[in-house]
């Protein structure tokens, strides 16, 4: 991640697929892990809550990247899968009083099942058609949750969920939730790392690069496309559950089409088909509105009246956000991950140019 190699010395596939390309990578990972462990003890609760949001977003971005970045199937309906997970977990937690280690996988599995159903059209259609089909999936799921009180729990379509309990103690503060969310974010990162370097991940990449050719070399497209949808939706469902536990409430308004676009923006800005990119994207997109708010509160008064600023911020956020998506697509299609690699390869040969 942060290391410099002196050259490429890999001679076996095992070495190429290894989780840690060099011994120093282990140390980098250990360093980051240490930093993440110290962080909650030195940071104020507000910053911890921001990190918590990033952790939740990381899980969702990784899931979407498996589908879009690695398998090449588009989904504009990912937020709907998150809402499926969120409402499944909320209903289980409230009605049956189940603990999080049941509701979390249950929410994920439910989302995976729904995701696989929405993914069925991907067998016949792709590209634009699939994008529209998943968009329809988003609208239909949203409508269903909104109109079936049995799922949504009545008028406001929101269910209050008790915070998760661990060893008999309820996780109330942001600091306590941090460990809970960190555990699942790390699990998601390691899971994705292992997924994409395994047989399944390689099949996904083959399908992305040329699906007909992949079928000819013996990859069962039917199975792997549905699997990609299911895995990706599982991540989305888990994201929904984590977010519900984070907020303490399940509400469909958190999972509308705007959220789907947020997550797509994360993986495009971060880098399609890259795990580090998903994390970068999650950090970037989560911090962006906070940065805009800070900037406007500090310097906005020079340009606009005080009353205008509060109306301005959401609109400004939309503009910066959409603008960044376009800028990245046009200028740096491989996203922040590519920028990071460019910086790294610059320093690899520094002080020479190449």
């Amino acid at each position, binding site marked *: 991640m942060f290391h410099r190699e002196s050259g490429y010395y890999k001679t076996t596939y095992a070495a190429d697929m290894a989780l840690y390309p060099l011994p120093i990578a282990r140390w980098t990972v250990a360093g980051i892990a240490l930093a993440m462990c110290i962080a909650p003890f030195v940071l104020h609760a507000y910053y911890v809550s921001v990190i918590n949001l990033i952790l939740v977003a990381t899980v969702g971005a990784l899931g979407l990247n498996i589908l*879009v970045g690695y398998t*090449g199937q*588009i989904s*504009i309906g990912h937020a709907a899968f998150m809402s499926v997970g969120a409402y499944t977990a909320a209903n289980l937690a409230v009605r049956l009083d189940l603990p999080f280690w049941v509701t979390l996988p249950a929410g994920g599995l439910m989302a995976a099942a729904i995701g696989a159903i929405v993914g069925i*059209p991907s067998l*016949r*259609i792709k*590209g*634009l*058609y699939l*994008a*529209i*089909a998943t*968009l*329809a999936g988003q*609208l*239909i799921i949203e*409508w269903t949750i*909104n*109109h079936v009180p049995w799922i949504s729990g009545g008028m406001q379509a929101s269910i209050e969920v008790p915070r998760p309990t661990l060893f008999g103690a309820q996780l109330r503060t942001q600091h306590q939730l941090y460990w809970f969310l960190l555990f699942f974010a790390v699990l998601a990162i390691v899971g994705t790392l292992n997924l994409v370097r395994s047989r399944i991940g390689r099949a996904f990449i083959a399908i992305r690069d*040329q699906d*007909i*050719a992949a079928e*000819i070399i013996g990859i069962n497209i039917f199975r792997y496309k549905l699997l990609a949808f299911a895995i990706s939706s599982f991540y989305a469902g888990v994201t929904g559950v984590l977010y519900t536990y984070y907020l303490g409430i399940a509400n469909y308004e958190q999972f509308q089409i705007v959220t789907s*676009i947020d997550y*797509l*923006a994360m993986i*495009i800005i971060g880098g*399609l088909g890259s795990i580090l990119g998903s994390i970068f994207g999650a950090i970037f997109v989560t911090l962006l509105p906070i940065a805009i708010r800070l900037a406007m509160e500090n310097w906005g008064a020079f340009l606009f009246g005080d009353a205008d600023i509060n*109306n*301005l911020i*959401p*609109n*400004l*956020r*939309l*503009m*910066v*956000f*959409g*603008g*960044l*998506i*376009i800028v990245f*697509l*046009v200028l740096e*299609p491989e996203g922040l991950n590519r920028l990071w690699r460019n910086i790294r390869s610059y320093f690899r040969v520094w002080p020479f140019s190449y």
Partner: protein
Amino acid sequence: MLDWGFTLVLVTNGVLIGLMYSLIALGFVLVYKATDAINFAQGEFVMLAGFIIAGMIVLAGAPFWLGVVVALAGMVAFGFGLERIVLRPLIGRPIIAVIMATIGLATVLRGAAPLFFGAETRALPLPISDEPIVLGAITLPPGQLVGALLSLGFLAAFTWFFMKSRMGVAMRAVADNQQVAMAMGIHVERYFAIAWGLAGIVSALGGLAWGALLGVDVHLALVGLKVFPVVILGGLDSILGAIVGGLIVGVVENLAAGYLDPLVGGGTKDFAPYVLMIVMLMIRPYGIFGKRRIERV
């Protein structure tokens, strides 16, 4: 048990609304047909045009015709500029790049429009009487009638354009095979720009018709969500398909709203077209009039 008078009213309304959907869908189809690009910002185009017309009339106090002319010119310029700055660099890139670029554009427009034109809903009065025209049991609101007639006019104009005019034939050639078109001496990139400009014209009139019906604010862009069922049903690259798809969607959503809403408690209007679309995607993804594409490795 079917109330025929009620059904007739629903169907006529559906036809009028459907033709207005077709008007917007035409912009989508034009771009797809000529450039293979997908415009997820079609609704925002319509919204922008509505804002320009309303802004000219309400804020600048311009006469109605001037507002429309400025909107037409503005939207054409916008289409050209967009093609040049955003979409040309994306030629030859995977389809998701274009989809995301137009989604990004939609987000920018939705954020930018209220900044420049204000957040409140503005009425957009058409210079005709709003007295409904009564024909026996059915009443026709003149605003929607104008929208429907505009749509039919454009259908005729574009059919002529693509069949007879030199430019239209060239555009069809570009749509069919870009490399061969280039070899025949057609300036492909210019035709891409023209297609986006035409989409701008259609959106300007769509903004006029829909703005008059719904009022102009950010929610006008939601009309764009209805474009997808329309074009999928009709076929993505068919102008006739846009009209037929629009009619189907308009009639279906009105019938659903009339007969299903009392049963399930509202909202079927936005729901039914998508169910129809999913069914269509399963059995005939290229639509009623669309061209079936054969893929090779």
